[in-house]
């Protein structure tokens, strides 16, 4: 082996060590932050209860800030313990298992919604790239589509899905309708950032492609799409959370059973008998969201570090 190769290998080793160190630092910061959050929650609760116990009639807590009794703010240890408790009387399955199953159900809806949304968003972006005229015509409607309340269109989509999609070669189930609702939220950031990304290709590079007599399709595939990748990943991160939110809201307003949305709805309606169940489920939903964004960020890191690029900061 030449000294040059040895040096290159040593550099690679150092880079890998540095990357590992960065990841570990992130994990540590994440854990510390959760602990701080729990400490702040418990601290506020203890403070509020001390105020209550002293009977000072201090009006801030309870009127302006949330009340601190166990119904409003169940103690952290109750919330943590709740994960191991069975939420149903005649079933020994713990809550954590319910949440995990519901999360998988919701994740499936969200993933399908994400994939559809990305495809739809990219399609719209490519159409808008092709024609300035269409871009101007379509933009206001795209923006308007996002101001329509999701709770209003969710039942429409679920009903339409169950009534009008019987002709499909496979059986249309209601969770697929929820995916469509998630699609509705995910396509938008992809379409917007995608258009910007496709237009980010350097005019000199466009000219270069012309000098090679490249077709429009070749220019799109070899130049404009690769140039848009950092923009797309920025959009994918927003789209990933939007897909989860869309799926949960879609389940709730579409009345679809099996996912986190339904679980949240159930526990909210029985809140007084077990507030920490709802808290635990919401934490479950948050973890799902973090997982989704984490998956996109990992994919971004892999793709961009291969291209030796930095991620586009949001």
């Amino acid at each position: 082996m030449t000294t040059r190769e040895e040096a290159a290998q040593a550099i690679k080793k150092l880079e890998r060590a540095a990357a590992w160190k960065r990841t570990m630092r992130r994990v540590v910061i994440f854990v510390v932050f959760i602990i701080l959050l729990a400490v702040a929650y418990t601290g506020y609760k203890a403070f509020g209860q001390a105020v209550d116990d002293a009977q000072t009639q201090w009006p801030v807590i309870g009127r302006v800030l949330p009340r601190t009794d166990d119904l409003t703010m169940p103690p952290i240890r109750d919330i943590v313990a709740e994960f191991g408790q069975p939420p149903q009387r005649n079933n020994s399955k713990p809550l954590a298992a319910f949440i995990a199953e519901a999360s998988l159900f919701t994740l499936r809806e969200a993933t399908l919604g994400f994939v559809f949304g990305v495809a739809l968003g990219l399609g719209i972006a490519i159409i808008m790239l092709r024609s300035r005229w269409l871009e101007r015509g379509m933009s206001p409607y795209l923006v308007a589509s996002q101001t329509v309340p999701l709770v209003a269109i969710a039942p429409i989509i679920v009903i339409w899905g169950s009534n009008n999609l019987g002709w499909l070669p496979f059986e249309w189930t209601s969770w697929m309708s929820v995916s469509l609702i998630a699609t509705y939220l995910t396509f938008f950031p992809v379409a917007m950032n995608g258009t910007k990304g496709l237009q980010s290709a350097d005019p000199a590079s466009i000219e270069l492609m012309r000098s090679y007599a490249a077709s429009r399709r070749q220019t799109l595939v070899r130049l404009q799409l690769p140039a848009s990748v950092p923009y797309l990943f920025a959009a994918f991160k927003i789209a990933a959370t939007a897909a989860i939110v869309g799926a949960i809201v879609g389940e709730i307003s579409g009345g679809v059973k099996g996912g986190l949305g339904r679980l949240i709805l159930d526990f909210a309606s029985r809140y007084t008998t077990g507030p920490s169940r709802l808290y635990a489920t919401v934490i479950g939903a948050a973890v799902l969201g973090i997982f989704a964004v984490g998956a996109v960020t990992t994919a971004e890191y892999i793709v961009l570090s291969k291209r030796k690029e930095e991620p586009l900061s949001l």
Partner: protein
Amino acid sequence: MTETVSCAVSISGLSKVFNAGKPNEVRALEDIDLAIDEGTFVSLIGPSGCGKSTLLRLIGALTHPTAGEVCVNDKSADQARLDRDYGMAFQTSGLFKWRSVTENIELPLQLMGWSKQERKDRAAEMLDLVKLSEFADHYPREMSGGMRQRVAIARALSFRPSLLLMDEPFGALDEMTREHMQTEVLDIWKKTEKTIVFVTHSIPEAVFLSERVIVMSPRPGRIAADIPVDLGERVFETREAPEFFECITEVREALRFEGNAG
């Protein structure tokens, strides 16, 4: 028209007007007649705004003439572009940052549907030509400006076009790198026997590189002088030879005259 078969580029009665009929109308080029023999190294020089880049873009059919005709290899410029008769290098290397050096050189070959092995072989050959073989798997951002420019030249030559169009390719480089790159380009020219049309605003660069320097005047761009350069083989000492300076003076005079007239 009296083109001969050996004409790589033949231009007759060429005019280019931007924004014709509008208040911001610009007559970029007027009455250009130019014939470039196959295998020659020709420089276009002139002050900024004289339309030299526009002329190059017209030869490459990246823009179209208002009047007159451009023929490349006895075809219309458009047909020559579709036949991939020319390669182009710009001031900015225009490398795709998401592609490695090899992948950048392979780009035109990929567009032309070459097989993976053919592309790989040709890219290696081109890297050897521009003396960057050990950087095959590097990415553009890991390289200096001069190296990137050499990759861009390798990319332009990868599909063996008969004509190489260069638009101030060394304009953004420092003086030392620039002189080095000039020697490299002459070396490549000798090895490949291409026709090269080279746009520059540096007089020594034009004189050192070319067999013929076309001096252009601004607004509207016209050919002010067509100066043959006969300095024999370029070596290090060429830049210090009295004939070199005579040629530089001749070009400078041609430019000065036009500068005063304009």
